[in-house]
């Protein structure tokens, strides 16, 4: 049998594979449970012992997107027959749909604030990282350290000053306020990560473009950016995940117009206790954008997090 130092044997591969699958199962179990719960009826969701096999229902999703009122059986009987599946589900619980819930708006807020702050972090971070990487900036090391130092404490430690500042500036409960806040937190990560990526791109590419008749900005845009795509993609994922999942500031600074999904989802209250399927449905839908975004960019992410580890 041939023996190689670098190529693992089939037994090693088998063990490694098994470990990875086991780890994946453990980490995915809560997600799977949330998704399962989102398709249960409220009684199924709180039954004991927990049900693994059940009759799937869309009640959670219907409850998530609607507000409902209870009506008397006599009044219910007088109504014309239900026109869609949602109404049918609701009437089985002696209720009628009163209108849409706030979830759609909150979800949209999350999208605007999450992607907005990610875009802004990446935009500013790339320009700053390029400048730090390529130009002689006075006190560059100190500036970089200063930028990093904003991450040396948990952001929530400055919650009170930020709360007061935002109240003074009228940024409380605004999209702009939340985008600026998340950008401020993410920018240090973006600058540092992207600087590493841009440092790895040989200057000769830009110099070649300068010689070929392009301006410094064109060289940056046409030559450096495509090369940095991997780094930008993985940095964007990190920024988006933070902004998307952020809970504490969202609770503190938003209540209405700019409230994001994380503080909203736990407040979904059903009749006679928490409406677990609706909460689970909200969580499931909330997971999807980041999941899709990550899957779309996962090639870059994989290359991104090992980038620079090996000198090519």
């Amino acid at each position: 049998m041939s023996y190689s130092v670098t190529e693992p044997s089939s037994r090693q591969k088998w063990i490694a594979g098994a470990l990875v699958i086991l780890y994946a199962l453990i980490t995915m179990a809560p997600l799977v449970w949330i998704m399962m719960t989102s398709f249960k009826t409220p009684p199924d969701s709180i039954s004991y012992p927990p049900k693994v096999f059940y009759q799937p229902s869309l009640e959670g999703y219907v409850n998530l997107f609607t507000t409902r009122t209870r009506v008397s059986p006599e009044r219910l009987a007088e109504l014309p027959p239900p026109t869609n599946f949602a109404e049918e589900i609701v009437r089985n619980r002696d209720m009628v749909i009163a209108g849409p819930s706030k979830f759609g708006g909150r979800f949209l807020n999350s999208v605007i604030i999450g992607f907005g702050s990610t875009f802004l972090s990446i935009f500013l971070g790339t320009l700053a990282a390029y400048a730090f990487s390529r130009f002689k900036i006075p006190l560059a090391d100190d500036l970089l350290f200063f930028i990093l130092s904003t991450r040396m404490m948990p952001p929530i430690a400055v919650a009170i000053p930020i709360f007061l500042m935002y109240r003074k500036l009228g940024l409380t409960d605004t999209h702009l306020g939340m985008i600026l806040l998340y950008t401020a937190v993410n920018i240090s990560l973006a600058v540092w990560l992207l600087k590493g990526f841009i440092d790895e791109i040989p200057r000769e590419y830009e110099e070649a473009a300068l010689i070929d008749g392009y301006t410094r900005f064109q060289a940056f845009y046409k030559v450096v950016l495509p090369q940095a795509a991997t780094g930008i993609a993985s940095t964007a994922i990190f920024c988006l995940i933070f902004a998307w999942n952020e809970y504490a500031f969202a609770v503190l600074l938003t209540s209405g117009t700019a409230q994001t999904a994380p503080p909203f989802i736990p407040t979904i209250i059903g009749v006679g206790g928490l409406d677990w399927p609706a909460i689970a449905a909200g969580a499931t839908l909330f997971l999807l954008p980041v999941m899709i975004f990550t899957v779309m960019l996962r090639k870059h992410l994989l290359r991104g997090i090992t980038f620079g580890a090996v000198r090519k």
Partner: protein
Amino acid sequence: MAQIVIKNLRKDFGDFTAVKESSFTIEDGEFFMLLGPSGCGKTTTLRMIAGLELPSSGEIFLDGEEISQKPPSKRDIAFVFQMFALYPHMNVRKNISYPLASQGMKRRDIKAKVAEVSKILGIEDMLDRPVGGLSGGDRQRVALGRAIVREPKAFMMDEPLGALDAEFREHMSEELRALHDRMGATTVYVTHDQLEAMQMGDKIVVMNNAVVEQFGTPRDIYDKPATVFVADFIGSPSMNFLPFNGSVLPDQTSIQLGQQVVDVPRQLAQASGELILGIRPEHISLSDKGIVRGQVLAVEYLGTTQIVVLSTDYGELKARVDASLPVTVGEHIGLTFNASTITLFDKVSGRAIRSTLNDGVFPHG
């Protein structure tokens, strides 16, 4: 096509001076070599001509126009990088056509131009391939294609053969020289390889420690070195140096080397104190009547010639003699010097002392 004049060019990086007040002229159509050990300022000089570095002071004239502060895109100079710097996200065709696209040339014209250039370089069949999979030589050709496609006033090449295998380098250097002869464009070429410089260049500038040591044709630089550094750097094995104490006066035709009188070219200047006699290995012959005696330490057989390493009163000397000459290690032998090729140097300043041999070879600094 253009003449390039460098006047008192200087570049400081903080406290470090990369290039000290250099001046030289590159004539139209010349294949011009910037030669020196690493860190001597040759690449910085090249980058200043191309506009990738701005000089701290001094002037660069391209066809009479002062360009030292212009951005590279406005200079009409092409640059070939050591690592080729082909755009990795584009295929061969896009790489070559990239400089034309920036000029806003019509698509049809670009296509014709790229076809023409790729035919010259023999890379027509790989135009649609990504640059990532190309061999070193093909990358080199694509980089050359990108440079010549826009017909610039001058080419700058920064050790373009440095990244190639030794075997292929030879072939590529011939190709480069042939390409230059065909296009007749002014080319400035940086190298640390003295053989490459001698082989390809019409003229050579030898730099060391940010200073231009000498500027001239390969023959002048080899036969009439202006400084000890040039004499030592050019030639393999390098020139032999025999230190002695003495003095020379104008019109003197011999010097006192220890107990011996050695003929030298007629001297034109005066010097005294610690001096050095420099002679190339091929100008030393072995004979029993020799003025300097030595013992053979080693013999390096090179086919047509052999290098004889000798221990003498003046240190180790190397002589290049015919391979057929029988030489055995350990034997004592006399050495004769070809008088007309000897250069005397002042040890303190490191400069050659003016004689009829090197008169007119202006030392630079």
